[in-house]
């Protein structure tokens, strides 16, 4: 795999611009840092280095471990760094000719237990969701370039000859949105939680988005409608991806969930089935698949009329006074209230009824915060059984985000 044949600027990290020619030189230099079949370690949040490593090391290294900040694993290998000035070879990328081994790309997730879990990919599996026919655009990067969601954006941008604006992940969201405005970004991918924050960002009105992608969490109708309202001309796509099964498909009609017709007419050839209320996909290759090849995604769904809607994770179900409650369902309800910009609901063990829910909400800018907790509890009671009503509703400035841009439910 060599650097795609783009021209001009490829990646802008902070104030530094790298052209496609730069990336070609750097990827060749990175390749010279190790011999064929060796193991490489990549610990960086620099999207340009990740990109150069992809194109320099695929088909050359035996394995490349992408290590996000905060994840510690003990693996022997050569640590890949940005080559010094003198080491960069001028534009002579031969694509690593002489080696046709398949490089293992090893990603890490924090896992629910906090123990890093490795996920092995090939370049092919990482780039499977890239729509190669797409026109060049200007992508913004909001994800860690070491993680699956960030890699998807980096590859989507580079494989279509687009330009990628990648502000440091340590910058505040407002600063990153300002960098996207200044850089002319017109395509952006983020979790629904991050999208809700973008909608609150003062610079968001200046964004000229043509492509909006949501993934990683349930995209509810409230956030889809808010994005449609703010960016009336953008194509809005929400992606369903299951790490357990490797399946992924997208929905483009701006409505939450996916069409029930997908159950009989599979999207992109991915056979779906709802069993005991849990979405299953036909994925015979994976270890969790049953005898008939269908594997559980762990996502609770409900079929309502012509739509399949996501309710939450099967593993996240909470027993409140004998009733099963999905915190995500209560979050969706809270977000549908005009005074709420975002919400996260968690469970607290309780000796009387098993568990109780507690909510943290971010108020909308013009919402009346006094007595908001009481108003919202009454709102939930009006629309859901009393077991769904959070014991307390705390108004917070912002929600805590994980390394993957999801609201932390802890």
């Amino acid at each position, binding site marked *: 795999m060599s650097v795609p044949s783009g021209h001009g600027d490829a990646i802008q990290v902070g104030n530094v611009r790298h052209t496609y020619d730069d990336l070609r030189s750097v990827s060749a230099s990175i390749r010279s840092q190790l011999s064929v079949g060796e193991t490489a370690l990549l610990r960086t949040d620099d999207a340009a280095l990740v990109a150069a490593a992809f194109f320099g090391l695929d088909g050359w290294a035996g394995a490349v471990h992408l290590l996000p900040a905060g994840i510690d694993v003990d693996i022997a290998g050569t640590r890949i760094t940005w080559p010094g000035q003198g080491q960069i070879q001028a534009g002579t990328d031969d694509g690593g000719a002489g080696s046709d081994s398949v490089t293992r790309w090893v990603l890490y997730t924090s896992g629910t237990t906090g123990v890093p879990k490795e996920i092995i990919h090939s370049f092919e599996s990482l780039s499977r969701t890239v729509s190669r026919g797409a026109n060049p655009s200007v992508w913004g990067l909001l994800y860690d370039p070491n993680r699956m969601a960030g890699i998807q954006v980096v590859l989507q941008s580079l494989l279509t000859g687009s330009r990628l604006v990648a502000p440091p992940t340590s910058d505040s969201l407002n600063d990153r949105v300002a960098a996207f405005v200044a850089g002319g970004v017109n395509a952006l991918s983020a979790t629904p939680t991050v999208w809700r924050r973008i909608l609150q960002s003062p610079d968001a009105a200046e964004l000229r988005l043509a492509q909006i992608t949501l993934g990683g969490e349930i995209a509810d109708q409230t956030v889809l409608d808010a994005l449609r309202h703010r960016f009336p001309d953008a194509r809005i796509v929400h992606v369903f991806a299951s790490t357990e099964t490797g399946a992924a498909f997208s929905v483009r009609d701006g409505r939450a969930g996916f069409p029930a017709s997908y159950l009989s007419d599979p999207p992109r050839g991915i056979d779906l089935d709802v069993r005991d209320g849990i979405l299953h996909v036909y994925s015979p290759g994976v270890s969790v698949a049953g005898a008939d090849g269908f594997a559980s995604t762990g996502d609770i769904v409900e079929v309502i009329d012509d739509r399949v809607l996501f309710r939450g994770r099967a593993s996240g179900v909470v027993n*409140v006074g004998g009733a099963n409650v999905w915190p995500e369902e209560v979050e969706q309800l809270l977000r549908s209230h005009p005074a709420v910009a975002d919400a996260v609901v968690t469970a*607290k*063990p309780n000796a009387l009824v098993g568990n109780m829910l507690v909510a943290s909400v971010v108020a909308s800018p013009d919402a009346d915060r006094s007595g908001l907790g009481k108003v919202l509890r009454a709102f939930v009671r009006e629309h859901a059984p009393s*077991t769904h009503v959070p014991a307390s509703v705390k108004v917070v400035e912002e929600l805590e985000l994980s390394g993957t841009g999801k609201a932390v439910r802890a």
Partner: protein
Amino acid sequence: MKTRVTIVAALSALFEEEDLPVPALSDDLVLLETDLDSLGYAVLVTRLDEELGFDPFSMMEEPVYPVTLGEFVAVYERFAPDDTAPT
């Protein structure tokens, strides 16, 4: 004393919030005779955990079921981590 004040305040706030008549919150008030159901008391215990920093019902080895408000308060006073309890 502080524990009692916090409990009584949280309890009357809850009655008001649930649009229930607020009974006389004296020590001999029988909890089951109020209009608050078991979920309501679970709400109270969760809120008190947030305010006082502990939940005595999750700390006790043998379950205790306080009958009156006075007994309920006594449970909290018994398990209160001295003066170090966050306020």
